[in-house]
């Protein structure tokens, strides 16, 4: 009885200690890592030299997890789930795996869909090739399309530049990067931030369509 009590006390003491230094401890690919509250799995992984591929992520803007390329497997209490690492906050005691078969499978699906969605993007094709995806089983409707609709340019225009000259128009499969009212935006200051952040090189073609000279 008393032994149990002391063990419990010890445990609570240990827990208290962990709480005190404010660090959250968990594992990525078996490697023990430390993080602070508010960090994401992606940030912690990168800090520790563990690479997770991303597309719609850019440090200059808040992550939204739209491309799902940064998925990882999070195991906890015998349960497992696949989550987008850029928006998943760190959690003590979990085990994160960045390249299990399940994760790779999700990534391949995402890339295959991207290949069908934006086949004209050289960058996307290269990224897919790195993951062994060279063709797609989905129908390619617009072979000249290079835009993955990740919305990074739109977020950068809002959060970094602060002018909101471009936006995502329409919904679902019709989603596209456009300026309000489908007209060339007079708000655009032509700073080129969208061109800089675009991960697919698509903004080059879109820029003349959305920005007024």
């Amino acid at each position, binding site marked *: 009885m008393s032994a149990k009590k002391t063990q419990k006390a010890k445990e609570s003491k240990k827990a208290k200690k962990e709480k005190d230094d404010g660090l959250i401890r968990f594992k990525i690919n078996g490697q023990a890592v430390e*993080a*602070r509250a*508010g*960090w*994401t799995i992606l*940030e*912690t992984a*990168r*800090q520790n*030299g563990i*690479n997770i591929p991303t597309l719609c992520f*850019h*440090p*200059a803007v808040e992550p939204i997890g739209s491309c799902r390329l940064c998925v990882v497997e999070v195991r906890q209490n015998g349960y497992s789930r696949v989550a987008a690492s850029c928006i998943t906050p760190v959690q003590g005691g979990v085990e994160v795996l960045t390249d299990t078969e399940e994760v790779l499978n999700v990534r391949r699906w995402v890339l295959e869909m991207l290949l069908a969605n934006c086949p004209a993007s050289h960058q996307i094709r290269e990224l897919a090739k790195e993951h062994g995806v060279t063709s797609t089983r989905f129908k390619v409707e617009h072979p000249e399309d290079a835009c993955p609709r990740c919305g990074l340019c739109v977020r*950068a225009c809002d*959060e*970094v*530049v*602060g*002018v909101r000259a471009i936006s995502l128009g329409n919904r679902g499969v019709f989603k596209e990067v456009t300026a309000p009212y489908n007209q060339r935006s007079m708000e*655009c*200051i*032509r*700073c*080129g*931030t969208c*061109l*800089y*952040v*675009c991960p697919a*090189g698509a903004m*080059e073609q879109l*820029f*003349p369509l959305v920005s007024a*000279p």
Partner: protein
Amino acid sequence: MKNESKIGIFLCECGGKIGNRIDLPRVCELMRYEPWAHLATHPYPCLAPGLEAMKAEIQAKGLNRILIGGCSSRVMKKRFTKGLAPVGIERQQIEMINLKDHVAAVHEATPQELARKAATLISGGLASLRLLEAYKPVSLAFEGPALILGGGISGFAAARELSRQGMASILFAKSLTAEGVLDALYRTFPGCRLYCGEMADLLKEAFAHPLIKVMPDQPIDYIVGGVGDYHLGLRQPDGNVTEVDGAAIIVALDREFGSANIDYIGGAGRVCDLLDLEEQLVEGEIKPGKVLFWVNSPEHGVAAQKFAAMAAWRDSLVMARENPLVKPTVLYPANITLPLSGADLLEARGHGISLQSYAPEVHPVVQSGYMSFVSPSDNLEHEVQWDTLVVPGVPGDPAAKAEELLRWLPIYPENGGRLKKSHIKFWPEQLPDESLFFTGSAGGLCDLNEVLQQGKKAAQGVLHLREKARQGRLVSPVVVHVDKDLCEGCGLCTEICPCGGIEHVKPGSGPVPRETDNHLCSGGGTCAATCPYEAIKVMNNTIQQLEARVKAMVTQMQENEILGFVCGWGGLSSAEQAAVKGLTYPTGIYLIPVNCLGSIDPSILSLAFLNGVKGIMLAGCTPTHSCHYHYGVDHSWYRVNALKKLLSLAGLERQRIAVGYVEVNEPESFVRMAESHLDTLEKLPPLPRDDQTMAKLWAIHATMHRPRVRWVLGTSLRRPTEKVFPGSQFNAVDADETMLDVLKEEYTVSRIFKALSDQALSPPELAKVLEEPAKNLTPILTDMAKDGRIVAQSWEKGYPLYALGKK
């Protein structure tokens, strides 16, 4: 900000994107003699863990300047500003060197070679950071009424909105009674009779409100002062000038319509224009019959046609409501869409108003009582009957009032007579508040409703400024400072400032030092680089900082390497996009981003040569239409041109310096430009470093500091709208030769100074030293001796022995 600088350097590996391409440990080694307090490398400083580590290091070492060797300042600076704010680091204390896009991603050289380039760029950044000066942002007072100028109808909406929020305003109106304003309304907004009821209420409220003072519209003599404290001089009929003060200015200016030429239609009393019709409506004359509104005159543009069609629709409604025997038809070109709702169309049908479009390709033909047009639906010619034919009025040019205001406010006329506020495009953080308000149809044809909305919005902008001032937050981020001791009040800066950031002075007040209005200042810096007396300083971005950066970089560069100045818009974005796109170019060009090429002082260019740089390239936006600071890049052209002339005078190659133009989204052009200039320079020898050449380069540098040269450079600019050359020049060759003469003379003066600073010399001796014929020097020496810049120390063999004077 403490003045003693403790600089922390943080290098970013960017997860290998930089770390694998640049030997970062080697960079650290190369930096060992530089004056930093902390140097660290992080895998990702921009992510939360990296920022956390940076914050800890900043606090532990008490750092007050941060240099980040990572990626694009344009994109990432905000993130660092936000992330480091909790440890007291402000935006201007952070300097970012783009190792990724200017070094790692664009060159194919070895990591060790790139480390040298990276270290050179970082040294430049350090030199600039060290000269960062502390300054106290001044918060502005915002007292007094808003001044509503221009006499536009939107002014009443603005005044009402202000009065409802308890702010006083002085409104200058064309008429001092509500009836007078209403009666004249049709001249600026034909077809808006429908709104007269609401307008009457608005005017009644405005004229009766104690906070709104309506004054007659008088000629404006001057507008001086700045945001929060404007002074307006009004010329009275007796010739005296009275002054009115206010905190803000709203310009409400409408475009007046003129009569259309209807002679070519004929038809005597049966044909009229919209203005005539409106006059008839005022008198209550509504003749029964078929009224045909024909929206013609494509020459005024689609906007004017749309406006005319809507005016016709509204007048049709007024007429049909008043007299059911009137059967109006609106015949409008099919290339415009009428913004009418379903309810509008229902009402039209109820009143028997016909809305008919015609194919604009085929001009409708007027007959007596009929008009034939081609319908776009069946391509067949149809006819419509008329008893009265009405054509639209002609949108007139901006009023004489506009001309008065243009002189004092940063408003510019565009093609087609439209007025626009300065077209400078900023990052919103450069100028967080709108401070000059421009409303009315002079800014673009629109209907009454929209204009009133504009007025209300302008008033809300003014109220926003007042609110900020009340909280003491009306502070501007860019601070341009004029040194009153150095300023001679020549007014060149006011003349060339495109944003209104340099305040005007009252006419006839003589050479008084200028004040700056930092709420309008865009921080372009052309004024500072032009000032003949070097009295203007763009805080946190001073010429001294750029000088230090150039010096630090050039002394570390190799003799075959060149400097590349890129403007923050076209040049920089294309250079960085080249990296994103995976383009490469030779390592020999070291990029220095500046706000605008216009902010590069001519002496910076000459200083680079004095320090031994082989060549310089400048990449800016295309002149006139895309320079974000109006004419910054054009001013830069004159400075480059002057330097070419001086190099030529010194016997050096003109092609060592070149300016190029590149737009945003043209990375290939940028790369071609850099490669081409590097190719040109490869054929040239390194800059000679012998005493003779050094003395010449010193003289070139001194020449760039001469007020007379700077004045000529500043006034040389001929804007595309100007037909005549500045000064008394008649043509391009004349203008160029005048500039060359001035440069030649001042260059010789500088060389004489240099020669005499070593020892006293007689004219023949000077001629020998300078390798110039003595007869060229004599007039200059006489001049210099006359004003005491040099003195004859003694006489030798009948010649004076000149030495430097006390001046």
